[in-house]
């Protein structure tokens, strides 16, 4: 990820380089990242539906594919170069090889209240209860959307288990779909209707811009126009905090007083790309992390980041920090009440 020392520079724009490949291919991506100088990468495990809705595979029930989502923090300039290299090296232009994209971040960086579209694509992120995950996957496939990745998560807004007598976290799923802007409203409408996002506390939807993308299957019917002279207002921030695994609750407890509620926690790992020269095993041991996602207003996002910078956690392998994604659209009643 971004080295701590780089965070102090406010002149550059930063982005998160995201790479989604089939499970098992991550090793090659790590080798690539190591070659260009990265020592660590964040990695999540997810499940996807084949990006080419292949009827035969669907019929054979082989359309669900395990995925790896790799995230690297880079300066935007660096990100452009890396994306081109990735596309060439891993043949992302061919179907089912994977995708790579750049998502601009508001912090660290200078993105404030407006975003000028740089690509015709957006990332639609939907957080739902785990028991509707399958339904959701089937639903988006039926409506012709492809390239869905679903990641298991936990909801921090906890419930008291009837028998354990303690607060347990609800099982959630974070669904990610990269779609053209032209399809965004249609998708939001369908999902909101089907899962009653506006009227019931069933989930939250947030859309982040994508600045560059390689590997997506282009449908000829897609309208890929965009208007660079029409900047979009950034209505919220999606704060993503990276803390050691098991410390999410401690972090949330500390930021609760700021008014934070309803965060989602994803179990991730900080992949150690450099070989472990000191340990007893010939392989690097990856540190487990919790990625805590909170939807917040600009002011609240700033307060959260400041609060986190003052915290230290047991077993941390790097200073915990949070970065923010600009959010240009939300849906769901829980998305509304996050401080203004």
């Amino acid at each position: 990820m971004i080295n701590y020392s780089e965070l102090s520079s406010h002149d550059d724009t930063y982005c998160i380089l995201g790479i989604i490949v089939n499970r098992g291919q991550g090793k090659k991506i790590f080798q690539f990242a190591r070659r260009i100088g990265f020592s660590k990468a964040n990695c999540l495990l997810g499940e996807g539906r084949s990006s080419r809705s292949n009827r035969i595979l669907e019929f054979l029930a082989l359309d669900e594919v395990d995925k790896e989502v790799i995230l690297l923090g880079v300066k935007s300039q660096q990100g452009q170069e890396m994306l081109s290299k990735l596309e060439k090296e891993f043949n992302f232009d061919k179907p089912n090889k994977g995708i790579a994209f750049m998502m601009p971040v508001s912090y660290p960086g200078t993105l404030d209240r407006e975003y000028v579209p740089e690509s015709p694509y957006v990332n639609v992120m939907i957080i739902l209860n785990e028991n509707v995950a399958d339904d959701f996957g089937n639903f988006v496939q039926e409506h012709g959307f492809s390239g869905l990745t679903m990641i298991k998560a936990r909801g921090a807004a906890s419930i008291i288990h009837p028998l354990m007598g303690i607060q347990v976290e609800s099982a959630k799923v974070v669904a990610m779909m990269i779609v053209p802007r032209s399809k965004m409203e249609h998708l939001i409408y369908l999902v909101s209707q089907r899962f009653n996002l506006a009227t019931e506390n069933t989930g939250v939807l947030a859309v982040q811009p994508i600045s560059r993308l390689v590997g997506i299957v282009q449908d000829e019917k897609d309208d890929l126009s965009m208007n660079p002279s029409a900047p979009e207002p950034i209505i919220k921030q999606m704060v993503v905090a990276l803390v050691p695994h098991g410390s999410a609750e401690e972090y949330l407890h500390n930021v609760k007083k700021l008014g934070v509620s309803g965060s989602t926690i994803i179990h991730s790992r900080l992949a150690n790309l450099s070989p472990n020269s000191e340990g007893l095993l010939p392989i690097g041991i990856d540190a487990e992390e919790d990625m805590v996602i909170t939807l917040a207003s600009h002011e609240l996002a700033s307060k959260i980041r400041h609060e986190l910078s003052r915290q230290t956690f047991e077993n941390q392998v790097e200073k915990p920090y949070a970065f923010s994604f600009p959010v240009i659209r939300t849906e769901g009643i829980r998305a509304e009440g996050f401080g203004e």
Partner: protein
Amino acid sequence: MHPVLEKFKEIFISVIPIVAIVLLLHFTIAPLEQVVLAKFLIGALFILLGMPIFLIGVDISITPIGERISSSLLSISRLWKILLGGLVIGFLVTVAEPDLHILGRQVTEVTAGGINSGLLVMLVSMGVGLLVAVALVRVLKIIPLNKLMTIIYIIIFILAFFSDSEFLAIAFDAAGSTTGSISVPFLLALSVGASNLTRSKGNEETDSFGMLGIASTGAIIAVLLQGAFSNTGLTGTLDLDASVGENAFASVLSQVVTVSFESFLSLAPVLVLFFVVNFLRLKESKKTIRTIIIGTVYTYVGLVLFLTGVNGGFIDASRQVGFQLASLEMEWVLVLMGVVFGIVTIPAEPSVHVLTNQIENETAGAIKGNTVLVALSLGVGLAVGLSMLRILIPGLQLWHILLPGMILVIFLSYFISDIFVGIAYDSGGVAAGTMTATFLLPYAQGAAEYMPNANVVTDGFGVIAIVALIPLLTVELLGFIYKLTIRRQNKKAAKQIQTIGESDL
């Protein structure tokens, strides 16, 4: 490459070493009969086809079924209902396990009727059911696994004290036979599903593992109790059926009927449970049900192919290899090859792949499946080596290995992270699986057949016991290394963070 093809490639790489080694031995020091070699190669082909199909099927049917059933079960708000549910599930899954029925028949034979096989099967199934219920309560009450297993092992020690030492071997063998190709992924998924529903502050995915280990002890306790009350000894002999046939292909295929029936029996309870729970509570969509049914078909076809291959092709070959190597009268060769076989057999065990896959899923890939696989393989290699030593050295008895082993297991469990305790106990259940029964055990039996001082029965039964125990130790050792390495990494990181902090001033 599509993930399905990747799976075939992965299994090919896993199974080829065994084939290569047997071929190497055949062309050098342990030549096999032509028919036996042909059966072995045909069997290998069946495994190469069947195992990937089985694993793909398990991933889309058995695992989702197990997770859904346990989350349904654990959302009931009455403890006694959950316990009853656990008991029923554990019982059904075990009573349908074909290996257990085979063991039952073998036990009746070797005790000359002293132990009734039907009663054994019932008692073992009830034992497993009871311990599955205990495992679910453990998740709800957040009881640490190392403490629970300490208590259970103490109970086993006490019971073992009152039993014939050979019964200990049968008891562990029963534990090995209850964790079959269907019950392993099902119970693993049950465990993961239970853990997901009860995740809370300070209690992360540490409860995802351990159920297999706990459930296996139910079988051990049941057999020891039966042995203690029956007062019989091992007096009979075991007829190792030597299959003779000129046509290798027909000989392998002749297993298909039995295997098809047994596989159906072991799958049936899982499917019945799913449809009952779906009707009562889940109400899954048509597409999900369709996916699960198709997955079950893959599981069934893959399992039939796999079991036909191992039963039809591997048992005779490995028995002959064992006999041939023993006849060389070079003891170190027998032990060394035992170690090698132990190491290369484990990657060909389907249950191991299911476990390592779950480990990666539950730790976001931080604990790599291959790392655990290496620890498991080394453990089984060591176990088979020890088993061969036991056959060669008349004075070395089973309890000489089991007792210190079990004490060491409990001791180490207090020095590693909770998740590794669970993984270690589950590894024991997984290691003593189909490949152990159809390749490693016959190897030991073949060697014992040649030796005048060795008893095929008692020495044979002990192999599974040792294979179920030693990998536990090697995986715990891996956990210990992990803990030390992470501690070192954290110290280094803390220093770096401090340095950066200081340089900011």
